[in-house]
């Protein structure tokens, strides 16, 4: 039996310990805000926070996440929209939107590490997250705006 905290709720799981966190969140818990895009840590659609830092949930097993605190897109705005989400809305970032949960989780994590990110920091922090619709320019603008706001 593994213990894992997801969005502030303590849970126990006795299924396959190798089950990637992504599928535990999506298929077992029904937290479908976190997306599947590649299953190989290549696209970032599955990004969640583990103890406050962005990780790829598709390559993190439930057993590896045991004892950790996991936060998903569903809980990032529990006290009203996060400033990053606000800027995403203000800049009309999403097209299809499928990648955006992962982009937002990644951006929040980036801004924690680099509150005033340069273009290179943004490239470095965000280039693991693919947006096939091509919203990168707006993502960059929204991150800069969020950085301005939280400073």
């Amino acid at each position, binding site marked *: 039996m593994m213990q894992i905290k997801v969005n502030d709720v303590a849970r126990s799981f006795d299924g396959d310990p190798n089950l990637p966190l992504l*599928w535990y969140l999506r298929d077992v818990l*029904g937290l479908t805000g976190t997306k599947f895009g590649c299953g190989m840590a290549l696209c970032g659609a599955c990004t969640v926070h583990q103890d406050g830092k962005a990780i790829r949930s598709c390559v993190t097993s439930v057993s590896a996440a045991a004892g950790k605190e996991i936060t998903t897109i569903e809980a990032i*705005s529990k006290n009203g*929209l996060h400033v990053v*989400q606000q800027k995403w809305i203000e800049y009309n970032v999403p097209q299809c*939107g*499928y990648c955006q949960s992962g982009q937002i989780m990644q951006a929040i994590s980036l801004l924690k590490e680099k509150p005033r990110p340069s273009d290179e920091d943004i490239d470095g922090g965000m280039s693991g997250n693919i947006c*096939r*619709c091509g919203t*990168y320019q707006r993502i960059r603008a929204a991150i800069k705006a969020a950085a301005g706001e939280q400073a």
Partner: protein
Amino acid sequence: MSDNILNVSRRGFLQGIVSTGALVLSVRMIPEVLWAAETSAGSHADRAVLRPSVFVGIDTDGTVYLVAHRSEMGTSSRTSVPLILADELDADWKRVKIEQAMGDPRYGSQDTDGSHSVRDGFTTMREAGATARLMLTQAAAQKWGVPVSECESDLHVIVHRPSKRKAGYGELASAAAKLPVPKKEDLQFKPKSAWRYIGKGTSSYDLVDLCTGKAGFGMDARLDGMVYASIEHPPVLGGKVKSYDEKAPLQVKGVKQTIPIKPFTPPHHFQPLGGVAVIADNSWAAFQGRKKLNVAWDNGANASYNSDQYKKELQDTARKPGKVVRNIGDVDTAFAKGGKVIAADYYVPLLAHATMEPPVALADYRDGKVTVWAPTQNPQAVQETVGEELGIPKENVTCHVTLLGGGFGRKSKPDYAAEAAILSKAVGKPVKVVWSREDDIKFGYYHAVAAMYMKALVDEKGKPTAWLQRSVFPPIGSTFALNTTYGDAGEMGLGWTDLPFDIPNHRAENGPAENHVRIGWFRSVANIYHAFAAQSFANELAHASGRDSVEYLLELIGPARIIDVKASAPDYDNYDGSPAEYPLDTARMRRVVELAAEKAGWGKRKMGKGSGMGIAVHRSFLTYVATVAEVEVDDKGEVKIPAVHTAVDAGTVVNPEATRAQFEGAAVFGTSIVRSGAITAKNGVIEQSNFHDYPVARMNEAPYKTSVYMVDSDAPPAGVGEPGVPPFAPAVCNAIFAATGKRIRELPLSKSSANT
């Protein structure tokens, strides 16, 4: 209203209550209850008090229900099409609820492709809006006992001008519903000056849900008691299962059973590919189970398909006379006279859509009827395909359209929805079929590989007096009919027979090619390779005579005029747009070239070493687009795109905000095509599998800034989802030539290597 179907929706999906055994979570998975129309007996709009059309219903509380009959895949159709109706109705957008239509022929075509949702919807939506507005106005006039001509709408209320009396739409709905629906001839459309939303820019109806993880994609559809399926498809098109291990997959925890799926009967059309499905209680267990299937395949005839060899064949064919699809003057006689001849070959490989959300569908079959939830660009095609596969009438197939995590043409083909339906029937439970990224890359309906041969005779000023263009590609028709080797009029009309150059002797040809994989529509379709060849070659000619690229391009387009394409290409279909409404107008084409060049500072800026600008122009989906790309190429040949300037004349633009986003996105989509996109096959098996070997543009590779300039126009609306793609690759390659002197004739760069 059938109880059965109502119960299905009550079982969790629509309310978003997910039960996982003893643990019951309340997760909202849909933006709101209206996200999918609830029953086949009707939509919320149908159940409203006033419902003058299938697209709109108005209730006594003033809520306006608008039906989005086209799919949302990121292009904003679900917002922009209902927005037209809301504007004409003079409705308050804040009191509008958008309801996604199920597949139903009463909405007309729901096929969301070809960049035509706004174009098709413009008149229909305005008629529906004007009808409702007139009925409300008449009801108000009746109520106050005044002439209708003294009443008018003003944002969700009707006003009696002389007395300033007002009545809200909700208040008037019941009385309006008793009036006869007015005739079309009696409708009056708002003048452009009175538009509230059209041309102003409106953000996506689903924006907040998309930023909070609440939006409901196909991947997110759930039903109580459902199981997950993953399918091992034949690695070669047309392959069949010889044998497989039924037992081994069951060793994987969570795997429940394996089910064979029969191979398709050629032509493949939208039929499932066949193979073996693994059913499990989560997606991942189903993926793992597949690894133990150990399928022996009978690969069939396509196992001899090798991309290297095939490329040579296409290129050979492109060097031979083909079928003439357009002819002006006499190219042969002109060439025979001799003079300066320039010729070049171009090549674009197979491409995969790689939508961020891979194909996925949920189906629930019971008692001869099936309900499907699918991210589909065409719910009516889902009904037809599923009906045929299950041997039931299509009326017994209910298709709910979820949001799409990208479409790009892949999700016009509902093979994955048919798989879910077949498996639900076999298992006796709701089944969600989940494609992995590997499945998506290996089993696509690919954008055709194409070889083009171009040849021109130029005079002393460098202007062509004869121009021959030939393209060869496996046609999309091969998906629908056996032995189809030539492109149809539609494909040839995508940037080939309609090249608007002013050349006295001009011939376009098409050579035959067999398909060995599934070929399908892909964002902007044949325009991609046709524009790449035509616009690169035009630029080669400019440089060959030492001319400025923009000036030369304008000279090629020639004076402002309307071109009657049919006169030289009788089969030309002009994207099904009437030549009267949507003429091929070189004045508009010239204007976008001039605008893009001006905004880019063409000829006015000094470009540093390794930097350059390139231009390309193309009309597709009835929209004129010119793109100037700036590139920087470093010593290692690495290409960066610091800026893109795109000028667009799409006629009347309903949603400028969404339009701008589409062109920004097209530049990134185009970057993937230029830099890295290539699908290849060996012994009939696709060699790529995921984003490591089929890379798509990432943030550090994408254009740093794409600026979009829209031409103000009163022309009828044209497409915006696709037209940004075709001119992008040639603009970048022309820029690379300006920067380095290296001509790119083959895509992607990673194969062509700008680095030499």
